[in-house]
């Protein structure tokens, strides 16, 4: 008897300890997360406002010459063709961010429902969908992107959608895993008992719960897609029209330009790095914020 009571007590104490750690994690979210968000808002805002900002067009040759070092006239200097690197970085953000955004959105719209359906119905449906995910993951991703982009065209839409295909499997797998966990929970069973149809359960009960971890992954995935665009650029197969971050880094990456105008590649690298870092950090924080199981760290 006495033993029973004492174990009950320790359990209560443990629960309280866990709650405290949870609170600590939530408090920790603060500064870094918001700095990341501010940076992202800044980049997205500048990209969005590019046409009305007082900056050069992306192909305008600036007065002052080629490979000029950064100055007050040209924050990031000028490139080998005499174009303002700062202006081009902002114009490039439009393409790079759109590619990332469209890619991850299409990944969410295809992978999310597939994952929820697989996790909800299990059995044969699950086997088929999981197999599709596994095949997609086994494909060397850049090779798949190359194959499709090369045989179709190099428009922003195609490049973004191709990178979206690559996002389907990881997002789908996460949605499936979360659906499996939530499908066993009481509120889902309750909704089934009162006669809700499968579709309603999936949309009204499961989707909102699966959406949070998916959105955390989406932030990470957007970083991956933006980086993948750069990879495609280095293979000569990125978006054809206009500046992108990947293409700008490539343009500044030959030994001669690197020697005399390091800023041409290093400026977009810096912006790209900070953006990826911000997306990674924000994604990581969102995940641990909502992940109730994670108590350590």
């Amino acid at each position, binding site marked *: 008897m006495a033993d029973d009571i004492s174990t009950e007590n320790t359990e209560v104490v443990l629960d309280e300890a866990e709650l405290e750690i949870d609170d600590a994690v939530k408090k920790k979210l603060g500064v870094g997360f918001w700095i990341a968000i501010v940076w992202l808002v800044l980049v997205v805002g500048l990209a969005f406002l590019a046409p009305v900002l007082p900056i050069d067009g992306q192909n305008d040759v600036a007065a002052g010459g080629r490979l000029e070092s950064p100055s007050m006239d040209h924050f990031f200097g000028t490139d080998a063709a005499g174009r303002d690197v700062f202006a081009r970085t902002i114009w490039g953000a439009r393409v790079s961010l759109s590619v990332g955004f469209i890619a991850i959105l299409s990944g969410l719209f295809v992978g999310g429902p597939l994952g929820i359906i697989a996790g909800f119905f299990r059995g044969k449906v699950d086997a088929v969908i999981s197999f599709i995910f596994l095949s997609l993951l*086994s*494909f*060397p991703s850049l090779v798949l992107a190359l*194959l499709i982009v090369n045989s179709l065209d190099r428009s922003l839409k195609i490049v973004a959608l191709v990178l979206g295909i690559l996002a389907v499997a990881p997002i789908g797998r996460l949605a499936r895993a979360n659906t499996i966990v939530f499908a066993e929970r009481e509120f889902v069973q309750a909704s089934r008992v009162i006669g809700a149809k499968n579709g309603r359960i999936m949309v009204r009960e499961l989707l909102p719960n699966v959406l949070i971890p998916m959105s955390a992954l989406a932030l990470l995935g957007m970083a991956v897609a933006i980086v993948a665009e750069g*990879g495609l650029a280095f293979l000569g197969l990125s978006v054809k029209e206009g500046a992108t971050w990947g293409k700008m880094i490539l343009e500044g*990456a030959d*030994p001669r330009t*690197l020697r005399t105008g390091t800023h041409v590649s290093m400026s977009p690298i810096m912006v790209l*790095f900070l953006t990826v870092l911000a997306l990674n950090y924000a994604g990581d924080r969102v995940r641990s914020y909502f992940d109730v199981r994670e108590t350590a760290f």
Partner: protein
Amino acid sequence: MRYILQRIGQLVMVLLAVTAITFASVNVLGDPLTNILGPLASVDCTDVEAGLVEDISTRGGTSQGDCEVIALTRAEFNLDDPLPQRYVTWLGDIATGDFGTSFQNQLPVSTVIKNKLPVTLRLVGMGLFLSIMISIPWALLSAYRANRAFDNVSTVVSFGLLAVPNFAMGVILFYFFAVRWQIFPTRYDPSNAYSQIKSLVLPALTLALPLAATYQRLLRTDLITTLQEDFVHMARAKGLPSRTIMVRHALRPSMFSVLTVFGINTGALLGGTLVIEQIFSVPGMGGEIVTAIVRDDTPVVLGIVVIIVTAFVVVNLLVDLMYSILDPRVRRG
């Protein structure tokens, strides 16, 4: 045993699916006849075959000869068969070691792969070696005094390393070590074994740094857990020096999750060196498949995809099996 067979069956299915998708996409999205013959393929032969047009080859028009070439080519590459049948034929050839012939230079694809694969393998090998050589001491040092200055700086550094895209890392290393300080060559130097190894240091480091950061994170977490175990306290109580405890006692039982991720990454690496090879002009499989894709050299593309995907799938299987040997619970789950 049943588990192993199940896994193998599943992986064979994946291999089939991936090669089928690649095969279909290169054949449907591009016209193989045009890729082999060039402009000649657009000659319209229906009239000639019907005998409606006389031989006008002397005037540069459609000729009997051209049409024979086309017919021969179609027969040689089985282009008249339906797509699924061609896939099966191709698969049969692959199974017997015949990867076909490159459209571009008429070399057997197996020769092309034989020339390029060793360079890429060496690059991947060096990259893995460097990633281990960096991550293990790094993790030991940061776990030894967890949450102190060195560890905190490490966390920031590894998070930062993971946010540097591989091509950006490549350009940065290239700038400092090849262009500015000229320690390493700017182009791949194939002249002798030493220069080859030297040329691969920077690309291997580009490959290794993000991996090292990942492994350091994993190993550090596991080490910290292990260091709280009783046998570590026991070793400490015996008066063993910290270095011995860290390296001889704590390291080995902490390697579990690192080994798993190490295996998974290794499988994917063969397909992950494309961009890095391009930056450092390494004459490996990456450059080859990019050229082949741009030139629509279907047999080479397919051959390399088969190699890359097989490597990925086989390594994953091995990791899985290793896992189930180390931890019997996995076999039942």
